[in-house]
């Protein structure tokens, strides 16, 4: 019997570690174990490795060498550090925080937490594609605003936000701009200088590095309170002995991403567009979520009326294809995705959403296979659903 076919299209949830990354990490799990804070050669060896990795991340995001890129345990910590750290250190500049309604939960909940500490948080509305409404940003941006935090591109619906325009508006006032580039960085070119970003969250696994490591870029002159207090590593902003092997892996992943973004993003865009067309055109009442063109190369988010996402996910799983759904049934809170709801979808539409996120190992043949499965899955579940109009089942 042949092994059952397995197709992984859930890269936003987790990515494999690139073999070249693993190779780079291994020496720091085996033979190089000095503490980078130690003065002897064992320590200096790992310190050098950490600084080389930092340079690679700096180069990927277009920062300058002397600027601060602080290694953290991942995007959640970076987002927490940026938002809570800037807010609590700069209370004298203002107590208003502005974010959007399509943010990652680590941004949403950090902002909500701050409302218990004397800050007010505004969640900006988005249009039906998930793009932040710039007029409402202008309207809400007061002199008392200390921080604006906007996602570079949302991983659920793929929409890329107009960061350049947002930055121009934010910097008319005295506020800082934090950008969560977790899903974007490594997939599309991100350039701090051109885009006027004060703080940037970057994640390692999202560019095929190891999990549990990320970074926060902090523009020179931006003051922030650390989350962790201790031995003063990472310029005193993130105490704790450096996770050297993971940092080295992250650096290698950044180096590869920088080199391979142009070719790989074009390849993914071709696969993405083929998948979008194949999943929506042949099936009635099938729609694309998110922006049709201002969109991450890896993201395909679609919805089918009258049926529910988890039952589609299970049906695909039975055929070996792994995806995510926007339905309540796949979340811990039993609420459908807040991102999908923010784009104006009704609850039952959000429940009927599926997210396919592509990656380096996906092939055109896998895309064709996935497309070939969907009509039967949708037909079968619609035949079962009391919501389906009669004529669709005939």
């Amino acid at each position, binding site marked *: 019997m042949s092994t059952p076919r397995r197709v992984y299209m859930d890269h936003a949830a987790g990515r494999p570690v690139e073999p070249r990354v693993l190779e780079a990490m291994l020496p720091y799990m085996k033979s190089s174990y000095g503490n980078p804070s130690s003065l002897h050669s064992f320590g200096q060896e790992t310190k050098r490795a950490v600084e080389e990795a930092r340079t690679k991340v700096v180069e990927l995001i277009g920062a300058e060498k002397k600027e601060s890129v602080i290694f953290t345990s991942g995007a959640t910590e970076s987002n927490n550090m940026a938002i809570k750290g800037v807010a609590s250190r700069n209370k004298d500049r203002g107590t208003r925080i502005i974010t959007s309604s399509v943010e990652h939960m680590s941004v949403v909940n950090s902002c909500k937490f701050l409302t218990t500490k004397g800050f007010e948080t505004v969640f900006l509305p988005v249009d039906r594609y998930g793009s932040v409404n710039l007029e409402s940003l202008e309207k809400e941006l007061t002199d008392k605003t200390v921080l604006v935090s906007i996602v570079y591109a949302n991983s659920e619906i793929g929409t890329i936000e107009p960061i350049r325009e947002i930055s121009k508006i934010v910097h008319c006032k005295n506020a800082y701009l934090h950008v969560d580039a977790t899903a974007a960085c490594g997939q599309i070119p991100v350039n701090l200088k051109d885009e006027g970003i004060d703080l940037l969250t970057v994640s390692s696994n999202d560019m095929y590095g190891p999990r549990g490591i990320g970074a926060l870029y902090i523009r020179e002159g931006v003051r922030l309170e650390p989350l962790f207090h201790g031995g003063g590593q990472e310029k005193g902003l993130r105490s704790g002995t450096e996770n050297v092997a993971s940092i080295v892996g992250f650096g290698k992943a950044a180096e590869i991403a920088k080199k391979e973004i142009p070719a790989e993003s074009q390849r993914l865009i071709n696969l993405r567009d083929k998948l979008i067309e194949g999943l929506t055109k042949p099936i009635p009442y099938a729609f694309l979520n998110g922006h049709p063109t201002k969109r991450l190369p890896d993201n395909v988010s679609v919805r089918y009326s009258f049926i*529910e996402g988890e039952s589609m996910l299970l049906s695909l799983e039975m055929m070996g294809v792994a995806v995510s759904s926007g339905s309540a049934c796949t979340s811990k809170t039993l609420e459908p995705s807040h991102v999908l709801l923010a784009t104006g979808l009704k*609850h*039952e539409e959000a429940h009927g959403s599926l997210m396919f996120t592509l990656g380096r190992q996906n092939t055109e043949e896998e895309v064709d296979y996935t497309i070939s499965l969907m009509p039967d899955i949708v037909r079968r579940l619609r035949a*079962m659903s009391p919501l389906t109009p009669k004529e669709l089942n005939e």
Partner: protein
Amino acid sequence: MMYTEKVMDHFKNPRNMGEIPDADGVGTVGNPVCGDLMTIYIKVKDNRLEDIKFKTFGCGSAIATSSMITELAKGKTLEEGLKITRANVADSLGGLPAVKMYCSNLAADALHAAIEDYYKKHKDEKEMKK
């Protein structure tokens, strides 16, 4: 996989799926806003559930519990049907994930609603004859 083999079997091959156009009782519970909506149709003969069918919008466990209750209820008396609980359905499927126990385990409620609907219609018919 988070579901038991039994759940997946009912999801893959649902029993008694469909509608009964001239049903004696129909019960609908849930709400598409919450992600689950199920309708149970029953045909009653000599106080027994002679036929039963379902239609469900919802996740894997919503579909599996709908299918399972039709198996549990078919051929039973109306009183026996009313005694089938959510827990009976979950147990017969070899258990459901904790998070699904409440939201997607509505099949027993739908069956009870269908039987109540039958009683109500039946009572009306009796009264009309009087």
